[in-house]
């Protein structure tokens, strides 16, 4: 069953009366439990697509159904609630809060959820364990390495039991070894049933997923399954 379904999705930015098309009609669907990469050079529209898929932006035209539903009539507060409950985000720049512990960073989404406060820590701790950072639980984010920071960000994306995790160039700021650990973490989560949408411009990274959607100039170039899927080594639990 399709979790994400887009049909003829278009997005045009208007700046000072000049129209710049970013997406010019994209259609695909992503099923529950899939690990999909969206690839393309810069300017291909992949970030725009991610923002629309992640309810951070709205399309100009076309249809986007998440769980069979469109969000066309939703207010920004309702979208914030949906982002909080259904989606997890991992960014290239980690975006952790400084001077804040790993645990507190991870439980941040719960602050904005309706969840009872006494369950926050337990849930956050579980997410931290899932990314293999239990021993770093009470360290401040600034004391962590880049790879560890990104794993904290992944734990934060997990904590609210998101239906899909959007990872935007998650290895872009990391050395290859740390990047390997991140890909391993994502593959591991995917194995546990999480749907993952990865944005990247590197073929090598994209080949860790099951399927690659390639964009170019706002149009879909290809949508192909990965034949020889890479399995990340350097598992964090090793």
């Amino acid at each position: 069953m399709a979790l994400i379904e887009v049909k003829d999705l278009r997005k045009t930015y208007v700046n000072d009366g000049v129209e710049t098309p970013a997406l010019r009609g994209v259609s695909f669907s992503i099923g529950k439990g899939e690990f999909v990469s969206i690839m393309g050079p810069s300017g291909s529209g992949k970030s725009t697509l991610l923002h629309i898929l992640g309810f951070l932006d709205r399309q100009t035209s076309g249809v986007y159904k998440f769980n069979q539903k469109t969000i066309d009539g939703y207010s920004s507060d309702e979208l914030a609630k949906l982002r909080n409950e259904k989606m997890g985000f991992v960014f290239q720049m980690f975006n952790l809060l400084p001077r804040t512990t790993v645990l507190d960073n991870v439980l941040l989404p719960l602050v904005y959820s309706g969840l009872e406060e006494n369950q926050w820590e337990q849930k956050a701790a579980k997410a931290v364990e899932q990314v293999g950072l239990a021993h770093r639980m009470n360290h401040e984010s600034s004391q962590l390495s880049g790879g560890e920071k990104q794993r904290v960000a992944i734990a934060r994306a997990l904590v609210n039991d998101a239906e899909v995790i959007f990872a935007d160039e998650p290895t872009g700021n990391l050395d290859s070894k740390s990047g390997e650990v991140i890909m391993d973490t994502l593959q591991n989560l995917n194995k546990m049933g999480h749907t993952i949408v990865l944005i990247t411009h590197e073929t090598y990274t994209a080949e860790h997923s099951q399927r690659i959607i390639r964009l170019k100039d706002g149009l879909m170039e290809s949508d192909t399954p990965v034949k020889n899927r890479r399995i990340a080594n350097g598992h964090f639990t090793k």
Partner: protein
Amino acid sequence: MQLKHGFKIALNGLQANKSRTALTILGIVIGITAIILVMSLGEGARELILSEVRGMGAETIVIRPGREPKGPTDIAETVFSDSLTSRDVDALRLKSNVPGLVDVAPGVIVTGSVSYLGETYKPFILGWSAEFMVDFLDLYPEDGEIFYESDIRQKSSVAIIGSKVKEELFGDSDAVGQNITIKDRKFRIVGAYPPRGQLAFFNVDDLVLIPYTTAQSYLLGIDHYHEIITRAASPDLVDQTVRDIELTLRESHNITDPEKDDFFIVTQQGLVDQIKIITQTFTAFLALVVAISLVVGGIGIMNIMLVSVTERTREIGLRKAIGATNRDILTQFLLESVLLTSAGGVIGIAIGLGLSLGISVVLSQFLGINWEFSIPIAGIVLGLGVSGLVGLIFGLYPARHAARKDPIEALRYE
């Protein structure tokens, strides 16, 4: 988002930049300190003045010549007005005119100096009834005795002196029975008052009391009075007695229009009311100055909050991405600025109270002023309220700025 957690987030935000936080609230601290200081000292000063006024007694009614002073020229008019005479005193003494009155004591003030054997001193010379001083202020000489009604009728040249006057002219030797000179006229000292300090509106220690008739005839050459002090039988009768006095004096002066009264009446309650109005006006003026300083402090807060919002653009973007609504962000930054200014308020209140206490100690212990330290509850409530309000008002713009940020733009911010 729950408010409790909002507080936590805001506190964390403030702790992140302690020295900047401290500098930012300095303006608010100074403003609130000023509020507390003004209100605490103002209250103390008012109590001091009021306690002096209360010393004159609730049933005391003072009649002065001239128009009620409302400006400098009116005061001059009062000094030179000759509208109160012995005819008025006689009229007031008639029970049928003013039934509530028990005492009528006219008096004059003489400016000049006294001398004894080459020693000269400039005291406060009053022409009054010594018997009235006993009744009115419970003032009786420790040496010698007072002069009586007969002395007043005969215009005797007798005087009672205060302790300071005695010390200045006689040192340790006896004063009673000696003759002092006032304006070339010799006065025999019949009594010396004990040290009493400031009483009602004059300093007893600095006093030379002589019969008012003597002062009128031989020292001033006038037949009017500078003041008539009267007393109602009880404080409850004051209002009625004041009206009776007004009617009696208007009749005696042929005045029909109360606007043209050539005398005015001062009561303790009237003075208390007046002092309250004066101090209130003064306080209001100071409050305005303080308000300006708080606005300046508030602009500082706004400035720093804007800087903070810009610095934390990515944090705002992240919070929005993971589910914070615009309202959550607004609340977070508003709470931050309100916490900031409230902390400034609390510090300001503490400093203000400390300074006020220090000043009170100096005034009462070292300068011997009968000063009482008061904790201005209203000032504290006002200080807390105002500091919080400053945070709310000046935090609103930065907080809205933060809340309206586009999450995509904010996440990209470098």
